[in-house]
């Protein structure tokens, strides 16, 4: 009898052990932190600033990539499948990859509208909301221009939406997330005041950019947008469009060409050369100029713009 119960116990131990082994294989390394997948480096950094050690973050897009053409990699399907939260920049910026990845990830918690779908655009007032959906106008975003991350004041709104989202998914960390948000906001406020002074020479400067992604940044610092190298959003330049743009730039005395790092520099440089303008290379996403953080990236963009503008006035 005793030997029988001992063997039963042994069997139970074996089964339990095997079960735990299988569970650990399936679950991967034990981690107490919130598994967050971030679509873009900007929201990834803001999430990290707010969540600190409570979150572990995987970022899908890289700073040097065109946000509209981020490759759909199956490795992110697995990350999304196991994610506790998905943070997106929003306004449809991720249309090229997040819907396809989410469809394959089979994780209802992170689908749009679910609590763990954290939309950083929630409190942003969108600009350039199209009045009609017509592809003659290029690849428009129905909810408005999604490149608000380039304006640091919108960064505060992004942080607020992200902090609220993290709190929604992980109520136990509410205090930590609120403290993280306050820290980030204080830091950003200080930098916003600095940048307002730093960027004063940009006010009234006429510029063309490669893509239609400068509206929020231009509004913040008074840059006058004259045109884009793309014919329409997402439509590459044609020779006739380039000729028209050159004529406009010469007529309006435009001396700044903004080249987003993910696009071909050759055309921007050629246009600048033919109009006597200077090229400022900026990044539409954090990390594109080698600065991984959101705040550092904003500053790097401003300095690149200033260097081009001041170089122009000095020369």
């Amino acid at each position: 009898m005793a030997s029988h119960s001992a063997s039963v116990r042994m069997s139970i131990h074996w089964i339990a052990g095997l079960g735990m082994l299988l569970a650990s294989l399936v679950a991967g390394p034990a981690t107490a932190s919130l598994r967050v997948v971030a679509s873009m480096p900007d929201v990834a950094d803001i999430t990290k600033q707010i969540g600190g050690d409570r979150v572990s973050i995987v970022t899908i897009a890289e700073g040097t990539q065109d946000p509209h053409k981020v490759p759909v990699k199956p490795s992110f399907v697995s990350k999304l499948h196991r994610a506790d939260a998905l943070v997106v920049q929003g306004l449809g910026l991720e249309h090229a990859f997040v819907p396809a990845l989410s469809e394959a990830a089979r994780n209802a918690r992170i689908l749009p509208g679910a609590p763990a779908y954290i939309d950083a655009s929630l409190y942003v007032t969108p600009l350039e909301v199209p009045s009609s959906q017509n592809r003659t106008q290029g690849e428009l975003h129905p909810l408005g221009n999604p490149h608000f991350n380039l304006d640091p004041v919108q960064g505060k709104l992004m942080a607020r939406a992200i902090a609220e989202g993290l709190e929604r998914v992980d109520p136990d960390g509410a205090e930590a997330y609120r403290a993280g948000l306050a820290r980030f906001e204080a830091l950003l406020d200080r930098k916003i005041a600095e940048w307002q002074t730093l960027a004063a020479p940009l006010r009234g400067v006429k510029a063309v950019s490669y893509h239609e992604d400068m509206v929020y940044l231009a509004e913040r610092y008074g840059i006058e947008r004259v045109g884009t190298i793309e014919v329409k959003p997402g439509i590459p330049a044609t020779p006739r469009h380039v000729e028209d743009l050159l004529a406009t730039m010469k007529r309006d005395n435009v001396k700044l060409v903004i080249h987003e790092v993910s696009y071909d520099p050759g055309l921007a440089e050629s246009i600048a050369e033919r109009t006597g303008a200077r090229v400022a290379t900026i990044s539409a996403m954090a990390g594109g100029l080698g600065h991984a953080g959101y705040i550092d990236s904003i500053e790097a963009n401003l300095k690149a713009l200033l260097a081009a503008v001041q170089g122009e006035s000095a020369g």
Partner: protein
Amino acid sequence: MRTTESKRASLRLVLAGCAIALFLAPAAARSAPSEVEELRSQLDATREELATTKQTLTQTQQELAATRGTLQSLVERVDAIQAAGPLPAVSAAPPPPVSAGSSTARILPVNADNPAISFVVDTEVATDHHRSFGSIGFPTGTDFSLRNAELFISAPIDPFLRGYASINGTSDEGFDVEEAALITTALPWGLTVKGGRFFADFGRLPHWHDEALPFVDRPPSIERFIGGESGSEGVEVSWLVPTDHFIEITAGAYDAVGSEYLEELNDDGFFGRRNVDELSYLVHPHTYFDLTDSLNLEVGGTWLGVPAGDSERNTWGVDVTLRHQPGTTGVYQGFVWGTEWLWNDQRFTERDDDGSLIDRMRPSRSGGYSYVEAFFARRYSAGLRYDRSKAPDGERDLANTVSAFFTWKPSEFHRLRLQLDDVWGDQQDNQRLTLQWTAFIGSHSHGFAQR
């Protein structure tokens, strides 16, 4: 002390200067009375100018004081705004979310994409130098054709299910419901179930729609072994293994796999019904590796089998795809190198009207393709493909095809493709030139499976 002395010295100099001036002035007056009058008139004019200048100065000082006041009030307002937050937008109440269905995300209005509808117009003009093999051959001469006109509809059905349909018509085959399927969206443990008519999950390119292929045509080896795209009627279960490494395993049961086989089966009407062991079964595991940030490898293997009956078969496939995806839009934008190889062991049975056996054969054949496509400057891509295959039931039927293809995309939804095929092997050589013009109306996406 030194300061006092220097001041005294300066004073002495000034007094001396005045004395000299007083001495010289009367002398000058005496010497020329008319000049005195002239000097007086100049002095008067200077006095008038001085008065005017004083008046202007007073006005300027007053304006400056007013400007200072305005500036001060502006500074106070800016301070007040900064104290409340950097911009009114920050302190203002958040705008209401766009969607009425959620307060945590901006989602497109429900009628924007529900259902998502698209229509593909895929046309071509092709010219052949010679008639080629029966199984993969092309008619001689030149031909304009509607290669595919596809209406694609997709939408969630409820919180547990979504559905889609692909209805297409071509110059050669008329209208057809290519796919009409339901897919679960809320099963636990990473499972999905698909049912209806759909493209079975065989390999990589067999389940791609025509317009999504990187070339004008489906590779000849896939045409021969699968029978066109992997059209099927049945049910498929797919499991995403819950690990950080991507592994997906699909298993399915079908009436038949391959649009041509399915068509033959359906043409049989009542006789299309068979025993369970005469149905087609499939297992397809595939996995993916990030070799570097921009280089990745996808590997899959497929078994397709019919365990018994007149169409008994075992088809094995291996698919390997290497992609370089830097994700930037410079001149060079990456490449895809895709290869599939199939081994087919299939019974072909010929019976007369009363079911008596006329002929039976079971040849083993293999074939496949490999292609490289490189992408340039947002608009262009160019590639080369080699395909080698034998007909699954034929003789003297080896065909080699080399294809060069060039694609130009004026936009994401519009492309022109030029392809030159050179075919040689056991039968007549052939060269074919095709120009394909494809455009997408509406919200077109076949999703993750055809990325």
